[in-house]
């Protein structure tokens, strides 16, 4: 069963990192959003430093949603989903494996790109560290909540807007606690740990809820 789980992770990684896989799309989108903000806000370094963490998080959140609509849809179209369903691996773990591969291909690069982009927003080292840490914990939560929308898009053959409409409301708590943890690290008054622990809790919750709900959506489509 572990072998099957790893095989799905490996295959999805190979597919998204290979040609036409679109793993780089998220990072490019992230880069574009963060780059245009200083031009739009103007050369006010204090203001940029204050809203920087929020900008980085909004960019990362939207970038995480890119590519989700194809996650199950491509497998549903070419018949792979039928065969995957017949594996000894429960559908929940199949969904989790696909989520993990998607995060490794699209979420992790966002975390790695964030420190570089943070420099453009005049963030101080403590704030950069806090943003990277919250992204590392928070983007898996966003991806796994996104599995729910991805499964709907795959099961009912409706993509695009549906994902954003379904998933963004679910990710709002993650966004709130991630940004407030960063603010806490820089200006206080609450210690960084308080909102960060809530964020970690939300992430753990999403890691369980996402695959279970996605599997339920895929099963419901069979009725």
């Amino acid at each position, binding site marked *: 069963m572990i072998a099957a789980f790893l*095989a799905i992770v490996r295959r999805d990684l190979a597919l998204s990192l290979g040609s036409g896989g679109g793993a780089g799309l998220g990072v490019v989108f992230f880069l574009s959003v963060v780059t245009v903000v200083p031009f739009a806000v103007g050369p006010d370094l204090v203001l940029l430093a204050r809203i920087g963490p929020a900008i980085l998080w909004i960019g990362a959140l939207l970038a995480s949603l890119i590519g989700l609509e194809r996650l199950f849809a491509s497998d549903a179209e*070419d018949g*792979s989903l039928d065969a995957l369903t*017949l594996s000894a691996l429960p559908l929940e773990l199949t969904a989790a494996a696909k989520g993990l591969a998607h995060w490794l291909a699209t979420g992790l690069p966002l975390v790695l790109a964030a420190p570089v982009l943070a420099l453009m927003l005049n963030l101080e080292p403590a704030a950069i560290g806090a943003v990277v840490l919250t992204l590392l914990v928070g983007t898996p939560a966003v991806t796994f909540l996104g599995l729910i929308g991805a499964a709907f898009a795959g099961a009912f053959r409706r993509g695009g807007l549906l994902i954003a409409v379904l998933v963004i409301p679910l990710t709002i708590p993650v966004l709130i606690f991630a940004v407030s943890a960063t603010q806490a690290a820089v200006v206080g008054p609450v210690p960084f740990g308080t909102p960060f622990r809530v964020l970690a809790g939300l992430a753990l919750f999403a890691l369980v809820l996402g695959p279970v709900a996605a599997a339920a959506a895929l099963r419901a489509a069979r009725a």
Partner: protein
Amino acid sequence: MTVKALVGDNLSCRRGFKLLFEGLAVSAAAGRALVVVGPNGAGKSSLLRILAGLLAPTSGTVRLDDGSSGGGESVGEHLHYLGHEDAVKGALTVAANLAFWRTVLGGGGLQVEEALEEVGLGGLGRLRAQVLSAGQKRRLAIARLLVAKRPIWVLDEPTTALDVKAQARFAAFGRAHLADGGLLIAATHAPLDLGPTDELRLGGRP
């Protein structure tokens, strides 16, 4: 475990407003092929998906008969379903595609190279699957049946796009599977030489 029969009781299927079939009793026994025939749109594919557990019947049940009184086994882990789509990823190599399904579906059958040789794709393992022709992709999908050993084969028009020689070869795989005590349920328009065969006719009503 040895599966003696796959039995569907009192199956009905409604797609939209159309009642495809109702009160249908299906029984596929080990060692005998069950061929489902009928005109286009008669519900052959729906019936096969129901038997494979990929579609919920409007009413009725599907169960495995394994000789014990218990039952309740999940059907999915014991069967191969070969649908209209080949479940082949064009961006991966032929061998990688097959190795993936071998791992995910539990293995126990032929090695990847042997299976490719069997279906006539020997030496093409390192090519990307997107360069294969429709018939070659079909052969790759059929190779999936050989790499993971499962007692039940549910095949939806398995020989589409195959040439005459490959069809004969496929029929030989089917006969070997049946001789090994397996079950085989196929929907087909082309006559297949699968040995002892039961026929189930769907449709016929206006």
